[in-house]
């Protein structure tokens, strides 16, 4: 709804579009209070938003400029054009235009994420602050400045041919990837399923669009499916985090895993292999395995090797080292881990000492392991992580 309204009113009138949404929701609450919501509540909301938009433009059209590329002054065009913008297909297209507009190169990554949550997911300031582990004041500033930047752009980004949008599409994919990751293993709450769901919804829109459903997009959605399928198994009933080998694999979502494999198949067209392809392939190996022991670790190490060549990163190297430990034994894993341990980017990571401790434990070096576990617990970013590392230490003593 927000996307359609912004398309009609223009990017420079974001605040006006937000007012309309607010107004429509208030009206809905009032109208539904006694009779209850109508059978098709979303159709009711769309009709109400459309009518509010038409009223608003009639009232303001001599004073304000709306979408610069639309003719809305004439009655011949006003109602038909606004109605057309609220058609299902158009709404989806507007959602994409909005996504592309927000992922502009002159906006920082945190600003892009905050705007995606604000304008495309309908999050409030406090929810965004919680999701991005930031203060409300900082988010407010980020959003306000971001809106100014958007307003200067004037019109929404036009999602035209594949070659024109290629660079911007990568930025959109990256933002959705970050959004999903923030939900999946963010630094705030251990698992924020809502963020993952929103990232998947938006990525689904990309995947349905003829121009945006590139192999990269399909691979990214596949990756999200594989991870999301395991979400329900990641935390125990009391909310504490579970390790891969502790997870009850029967709780994994089989339908989502199947969807992931279908998408991964479809993403295999074209001659490009992206980091999303590789990460999805790695996740698929976990999903396909009946247990940790029966996982194709050698295959996973190979995929990590490719991934490091494509996108060198200490985090990937850390994950690779863990896989090496499973595929070739604890000592080999420790060796691989030592090779990445000096990277300054991992200095604060709790996962490096945690991984080290687990490998040391398997190698029978329990005293060194205890020291590493203590280090991991010190670096934990949230209570659930701290509890996990503490429980691992306890396990060792038994």
């Amino acid at each position: 709804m927000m996307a359609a309204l912004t398309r009609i009113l223009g990017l420079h009138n974001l605040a006006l579009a937000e007012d309309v949404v607010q107004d429509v929701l208030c009206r809905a609450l009032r109208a539904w209070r006694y009779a209850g919501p109508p059978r098709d509540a979303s159709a009711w909301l769309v009709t109400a938003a459309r009518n509010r938009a038409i009223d608003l433009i009639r009232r303001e059209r001599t004073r304000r400029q709306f979408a610069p590329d639309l003719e809305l002054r004439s009655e011949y065009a006003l109602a038909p054009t606004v109605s057309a913008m609220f058609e299902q297909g158009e709404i989806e297209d507007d959602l994409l235009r909005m996504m592309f507009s927000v992922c502009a190169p002159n906006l920082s990554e945190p600003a892009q994420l905050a705007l995606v949550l604000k304008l495309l997911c309908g999050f409030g300031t406090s929810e965004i602050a919680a999701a991005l582990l930031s203060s409300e004041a900082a988010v407010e500033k980020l959003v306000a400045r971001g809106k100014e930047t958007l307003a200067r752009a004037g019109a929404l980004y036009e999602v035209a041919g594949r070659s024109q949008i290629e660079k911007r599409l990568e930025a959109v994919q990256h933002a959705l990837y970050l959004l999903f990751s923030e939900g999946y293993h963010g630094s705030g709450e251990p698992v924020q399923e809502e963020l993952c769901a929103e990232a998947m919804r938006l990525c689904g829109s990309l995947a349905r669009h003829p121009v945006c459903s590139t192999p990269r997009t399909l691979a990214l959605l596949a990756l999200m499916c594989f991870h999301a399928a395991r979400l329900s198994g990641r935390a125990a009933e009391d909310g504490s985090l579970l390790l891969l080998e502790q997870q009850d694999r029967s709780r994994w979502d089989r339908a989502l895993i199947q969807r992931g494999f279908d998408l991964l198949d479809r993403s295999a067209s074209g001659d490009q292999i992206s980091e999303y392809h590789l990460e999805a392939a790695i996740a698929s190996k976990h999903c396909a395995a009946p247990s940790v022991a029966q996982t194709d670790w050698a295959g996973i190490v190979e995929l990590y090797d490719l991934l490091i060549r494509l996108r060198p990163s200490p985090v990937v190297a850390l994950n690779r080292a863990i896989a090496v430990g499973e595929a070739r034994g604890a000592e080999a894993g420790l060796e691989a881990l030592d090779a990445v341990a000096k990277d300054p980017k991992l200095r604060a990571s709790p996962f490096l000492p945690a991984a080290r401790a687990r490998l040391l434990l398997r190698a029978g070096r329990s005293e060194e392991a205890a020291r590493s576990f203590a280090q991991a617990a010190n670096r934990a970013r949230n209570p659930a992580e701290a509890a996990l590392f503490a429980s691992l230490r306890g396990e060792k003593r038994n």
Partner: protein
Amino acid sequence: MPNFLYIFRGAGMNKQSPQEMQQQMQKWGAWIQQLQKDGHFKAGEPLETGGKVVQGKRKAVTDGPYAEAKDLVGGFLLIEARNLDEAAELSRGCPGLDVDGSVEVRPIAILNM
């Protein structure tokens, strides 16, 4: 570029079902957006059927206009085109023509004094 007035007559809106009318309105909307995109549209509005007519030196006001349905002006558009031929060509996109309406294309007069 010279300006032209389109005068629409007898687009027969009242003989249509609500669905047909809605479709007809969508066509008008799309046509106007196209004219706007191509830089031809300047202004224009549909008209209600009733109104008042003021006439004569005595400036008498009567209800009206009571023209035959096919002669009734249903709306107007002010457009920009290179010449009369182009203006006439552009007017062929008018959705009213599909329901037995007509478009009168008139150049805006330049008054030299």
